[in-house]
């Protein structure tokens, strides 16, 4: 029922398709500008926002430095409070653990709290292979799941859909997997939300097992934290008998007090709210209250690889707020699917290569999916210098091809440019040639503009004019006129 990112083309080709989807362009422009305005308003209210960003970044940075110790403390605290802790190296191990727990309880369905990590590892698909249905209960995730679609945003995965499309999905699909949408369903947001509530309620009340991620894991106390807006998470975390939480190892913070800046930064950066409506925290098993069997799967899946990258490791500070997506001019136009990953946008452009490693053409295209405008860094609540990491990863991509038998034309061009720019005389000779071309092109009083050039420059002139080169470079003018003192 769900699509797959496997086999997606590299970014430029995927983006071309997305850019041609006029409905998508309209939906994205509307949604991102709405969220941007909300975020700007609530961030503007906080006088010490920049200090708060520094504090948030410092907390996560400190946590990453003591990660090894903190993970062991987390395991100890969780175990002491009755939780079962599992360690998973990769997606396959994590999925196997969840499947085994589900089998042990003979369940054929689980309810899910919205979780990026379970999407990263393809948990729903792994469960489906074993005949276990995983029901997404977050409204937007439900829309994506019912539509057989892929998420296109970290926070609002159905951002590419508008109300009319959502109404159609509900009408056509809800009945196939549970309570159908009411006959008189309109595309009013409140009406759509009410239909989802009715549809999900029977799943909440029936399910005996839930799967969640976690926004934070406190090493000291063994407490997991989930923040959300809809209350569906609270339902999943409290109603079923068995709760399995899959937590990326970078989610650990050493102490409870260190949640402070992060819980203040996250809602304002993500939903543009002063405070998120629901903050659920739980610590192992509480007898007679909530799930009586609690599992925590601590997952690496490339995080230690990212941690080993001195420039790139700052990406592990990410708290998945998606502020960088909402301000990104590239994301705003192409949407999330073009990135070929559950992590789209600027953070996805660095996180995917850091977690998976470079070397695959699709992954290698992601660090280039940016104009390096810097809006993401400015918005990031934990000050991840995304442009810096993008440039660093581009160098990694290029270095991965340095020993190629047949270098790419681009590599040869940059090698030649490097040579020419090492000596002003070489550059001067090239400029004299371009000046000659400029004189020819401007001869006869034709407009000094090129409408079409051959070769790679065609990518420019396909949609943009290009000025013809001037007859004389600045360098030549300076020499000829003594810096403008002679005519």
């Amino acid at each position: 029922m769900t699509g797959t990112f496997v086999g997606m083309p590299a970014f430029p080709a995927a983006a071309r398709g997305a850019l041609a989807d006029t409905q998508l362009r309209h939906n994205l422009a509307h949604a991102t500008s709405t969220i941007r305005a909300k975020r700007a308003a609530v961030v503007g209210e906080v006088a010490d926002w920049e200090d708060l960003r520094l504090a948030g970044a410092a907390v996560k940075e400190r946590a990453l430095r003591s990660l090894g110790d903190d993970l062991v403390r987390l395991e100890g605290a969780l175990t002491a409070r009755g939780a079962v802790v599992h360690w998973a190296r990769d997606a396959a191990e994590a999925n196997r653990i969840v499947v085994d727990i589900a089998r042990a309880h003979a369940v054929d369905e689980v309810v899910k709290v919205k979780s990026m990590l379970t999407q990263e590892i393809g948990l729903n698909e792994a469960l489906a292979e074993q005949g276990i249905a995983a029901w997404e209960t977050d409204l937007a995730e439900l829309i994506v799941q019912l539509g057989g679609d892929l998420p296109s945003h970290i926070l609002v995965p159905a951002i590419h859909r508008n109300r009319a499309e959502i109404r159609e999905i509900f009408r056509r699909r809800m009945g196939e997997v549970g309570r159908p949408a009411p006959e008189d369903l309109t595309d009013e947001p409140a009406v759509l939300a009410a239909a989802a509530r009715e549809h999900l309620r029977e799943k909440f009340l029936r399910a005996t097992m839930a799967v969640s991620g976690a926004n934070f894991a406190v090493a000291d106390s063994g407490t997991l934290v989930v923040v959300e807006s809809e209350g569906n998470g609270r339902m999943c975390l409290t109603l079923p008998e068995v709760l399995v939480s899959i937590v990326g190892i970078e989610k650990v913070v050493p102490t409870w007090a260190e949640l402070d800046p992060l819980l203040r930064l996250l809602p304002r950066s993500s939903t543009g709210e002063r405070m998120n409506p629901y903050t659920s925290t739980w610590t192992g098993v509480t007898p007679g209250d909530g799930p009586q069997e609690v599992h925590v799967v601590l997952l690496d899946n490339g995080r230690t690889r990212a941690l080993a990258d001195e420039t790139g490791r700052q990406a592990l500070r990410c708290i998945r707020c998606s502020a960088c997506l909402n301000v990104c001019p590239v994301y705003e136009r192409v949407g999330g699917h073009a990135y070929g990953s559950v992590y789209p946008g600027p953070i996805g452009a660095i996180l995917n290569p850091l977690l998976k490693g470079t070397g695959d053409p699709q992954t290698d295209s992601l660090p280039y999916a940016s104009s390096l405008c810097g809006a993401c860094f400015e918005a990031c609540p934990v000050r991840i210098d995304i442009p810096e990491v993008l440039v660093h990863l581009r160098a990694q991509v290029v270095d991965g091809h340095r020993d190629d038998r047949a270098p790419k034309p681009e590599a040869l061009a940059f090698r030649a440019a490097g040579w020419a720019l090492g000596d002003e005389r070489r550059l001067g000779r090239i400029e004299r040639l371009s000046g000659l071309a400029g004189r020819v092109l401007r001869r006869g009083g034709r407009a000094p503009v090129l409408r079409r050039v051959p070769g790679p420059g065609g990518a420019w002139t396909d949609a943009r004019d290009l000025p013809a080169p001037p007859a004389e470079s600045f360098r030549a003018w300076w020499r000829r006129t003594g810096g403008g003192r002679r005519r």
Partner: protein
Amino acid sequence: MRVALMVTCVNDAMFPGTGQAVVRLLRRLGVEVDFPQAQTCCGQPMVNTGYLDEAVPAVRSFVRAFEGYDAVVTPSGSCAGSARHQHRLVAARSGDSGLAAAVAEISPRTYELTEFLVDVLGVTDVGAYFPHTVTYHPTCHSLRMLGVGDRPRRLLEQVRGLRLVDLPQAEECCGFGGTFALKNADTSVAMGSDKARHVRETGAEVLVAGDNSCLMHIGGVLGRGRSGVRVMHLAEVLAATEESVPAGAGPIA
């Protein structure tokens, strides 16, 4: 004060009028600039495409050209950003500690034109005259990498005859992005089209910015649409006087 002009490779080869405008403008303000011949390019095209080794010769040229000057002035936010923020990366990659030391020494004395005018010379009224309706696009690297803030605006507001109109969503990237404009041409053009639309909404005759590379892109989109709006580097506006109002088209018709 010994002041050097870092004209940038794009201006040198494609827009010499901008370099000439900086020379005229600074001379009018009593600053005699040198043009060290050893300069080539700041190396940013290579760095931002991932070719760090290939950027080393350009950074060496930069150091050779500008060592010993009190200030290096450049009519480009992007190239100033490259000198201030990226040269140390290239120097570190070269493994040459001498280059790293030279870079550390010159980088902080590299100024984008409006920083030099407002912060070093302490002027906002440069005695310019430009009787046109103008809108201003703050380029990303000048805005977010250097933090030039409202300096360009303060300079433009003092230009006699100039009517400055606000550009909607001014701070959003135009989509140039160096090799991004070619490697992701479709996305780049989509961004450029939106920027061009906002420019046209203002009704301005001239779009002004501090980076000719961004202007080449926006101007290229405006020109392809035969929009009748011209683009012009800020330096050329500030250099204009009643005696020497630039005639006709800017870089792109």
